């Protein structure tokens, strides 16, 4: 765990921390002193990333090497988009990286761009995060001459971080998803486009130096490497942590001194709820969470304590989902609004609320141009599966828990 500072000179040998060593000087000088130059760029990096088994850290967990290979095989020069938008409300890992270790991200960007033959590089950060923007600008100014990296400031919209929406916005349109679009074939300006999360690119910055075998020293065979998680809720030490993939959720909660949890939200608003009591066998990997009906997603973990009303939090996020729809697809526009209405019904003790909610979550899955409605469906379904006792309490009007406000509902921004 990263609470203990690792000797910086030992990075090649030591296992953690990799991405966020403490204490940290984000300057280029310190970065150079610690890691030295990035090896000469080349196409061999794609094979190395494939061998490393690195999976995207933006939430989808798609094998990064395969994506890079697909873009490299595309027609004409490619485009690289580094996705640092971090629309997931409780996630802080991407900005922790961009502020705390920007040059590692920039190294990864340069290496990936060279590997896929990209002659245009864009780094997207939400404009509502001025501290991150300033830090990135500072880091870009410090870089020695090399490929130009354009910093773009995106609107505060959850779906703006979705690949096709980001590409559309970059090309001058609304930050709304495009049906049937595959950016790795035709993306920005019609060119093959590699869209990668900034944490994924940071890992590439290290794989380029230390190789696939080194990357595999941590994590599991199917999902190797380390990952950043953001822990919040009723825990003593909230924040961003770097863990080996497959780390025990229970051990992580002990480490951050979490209060006994009624339920955990794994993967953020796009994730799923799991019960907080018995965490044996629950590990932070796709395989380790599948049995519990969840997946790591963007690495957000929220602990809701026993004395807080988790259903109220669920209702807040159900409303958030309804108000953040891109408004392009009927089942999403109307379905998410009605799902929120049904969850409010459950909160109010309406006996029909749960049946209606489940009917409508089933009805919206797979019906949109993107997976936003699926996110709402999984969030609500898993809540109803996990918070059985709470739902019963509300039905009988006997919930005495307090409103904790652990899950915020940021207001939507513009589409441009």
């Amino acid at each position, binding site marked *: 765990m990263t609470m203990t500072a690792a000797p910086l000179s030992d990075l090649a040998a030591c296992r953690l921390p990799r991405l966020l060593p403490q204490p940290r000087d984000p300057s280029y000088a310190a970065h150079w002193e610690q890691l030295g130059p990035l090896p000469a760029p080349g196409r061999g990096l794609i094979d190395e990333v494939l061998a490393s088994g690195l999976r995207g850290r933006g939430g989808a967990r798609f094998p990064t090497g395969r994506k890079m290979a697909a873009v490299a095989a595309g027609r004409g020069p490619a485009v690289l988009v580094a996705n640092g938008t971090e629309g997931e409300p409780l996630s802080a890992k991407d900005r922790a990286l961009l502020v705390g270790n920007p040059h590692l991200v920039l190294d990864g960007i340069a290496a990936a761009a060279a590997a896929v033959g990209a002659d245009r590089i864009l780094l997207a950060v939400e404009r509502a995060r001025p501290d991150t923007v300033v830090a990135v600008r500072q880091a870009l100014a410090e870089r020695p001459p090399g490929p130009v990296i354009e910093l773009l400031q995106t609107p505060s919209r959850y779906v703006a971080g979705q690949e096709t929406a980001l590409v559309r916005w970059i090309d001058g349109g609304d930050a709304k998803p495009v049906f049937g679009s595959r950016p790795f074939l035709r993306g920005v300006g019609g060119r093959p486009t590699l869209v990668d999360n900034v944490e994924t690119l940071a890992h590439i910055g290290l794989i380029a130096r230390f190789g696939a075998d080194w990357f595999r020293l941590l994590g599991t065979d199917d999902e190797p490497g380390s990952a950043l998680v953001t822990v919040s809720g009723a825990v003593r030490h909230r924040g961003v942590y770097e863990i080996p993939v497959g780390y025990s959720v229970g051990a992580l909660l002990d480490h951050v001194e979490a209060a006994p949890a009624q339920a955990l939200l794994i993967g953020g608003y796009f994730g799923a709820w799991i019960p907080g009591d018995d965490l044996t066998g629950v590990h932070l990997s796709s395989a380790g969470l599948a049995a519990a009906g969840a997946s790591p997603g963007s690495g957000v973990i929220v602990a809701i304590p026993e004395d807080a009303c988790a259903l109220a939090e669920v209702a807040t996020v159900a409303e958030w989902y309804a108000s953040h729809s891109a408004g392009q697809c009927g089942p999403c526009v109307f379905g998410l609004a*009605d799902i929120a*209405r049904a969850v409010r019904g459950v909160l109010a003790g309406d006996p*029909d609320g749960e*049946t*209606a909610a489940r009917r*409508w979550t089933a009805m919206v899955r797979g019906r949109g141009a993107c997976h936003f409605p699926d996110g709402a469906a999984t969030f609500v379904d898993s809540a109803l599966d996990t918070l059985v006792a709470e739902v019963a309490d509300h039905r009988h009007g006997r919930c005495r828990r307090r409103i904790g406000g652990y899950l915020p509902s940021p207001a939507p921004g513009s589409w441009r």
Partner: protein
Amino acid sequence: MLATTLLQSKVLWYVMRASGLVALVLLTLTMVAGIVNVRRFATPRWPRAVIALLHRNVSLLAVVFLGVHVVTAILDTYVSVGWLAAIVPLTSHWDRFWVGLGTLSVDVMFALIITSLLRSRLSHRTWRAVHWLAYASWPLAMAHGLGAGTDTGAVWAEAVYALSALAVVGAVGWRLRQPTGRTLPTARRPTLATGARS
């Protein structure tokens, strides 16, 4: 021989007038179906698909009658219209202005039908923009009928024109009162209890 020529001429003349009026009635039907379909008019007896297909098929039938109307008008020797007047407005030898309106109406209809047949190859916006011209085509046809038509003045003809105008104006009036945009009327929102649409 003079008798047969006169007779032939009279038949063409009557067919020309009749087919014109029939075409106008069919066009009115087409307009009404199109206008109400946009605002999703439907009854159990007249579902959306029926109204939409009616709109398409009646418009094609109208074209058939229009074709007869134009050809007989040109062939008939009682008045001189000329082939060019079928396509280019204001080139008829007889009643230049009122016949010209009819020609213009047909030209617009041509554009409507061609763009609709090629709909899948055009952008929706383009197709829609051209289709709005229907609101020009129909009044032009009405004006042509009233101005160039030689049955104007007869009571039954006046009734046809009046009912046609009433139908289209009524449809437009109905349409203007319907809500626009992606709204779901409160009555249609599913309730928690039933889950199904009312």
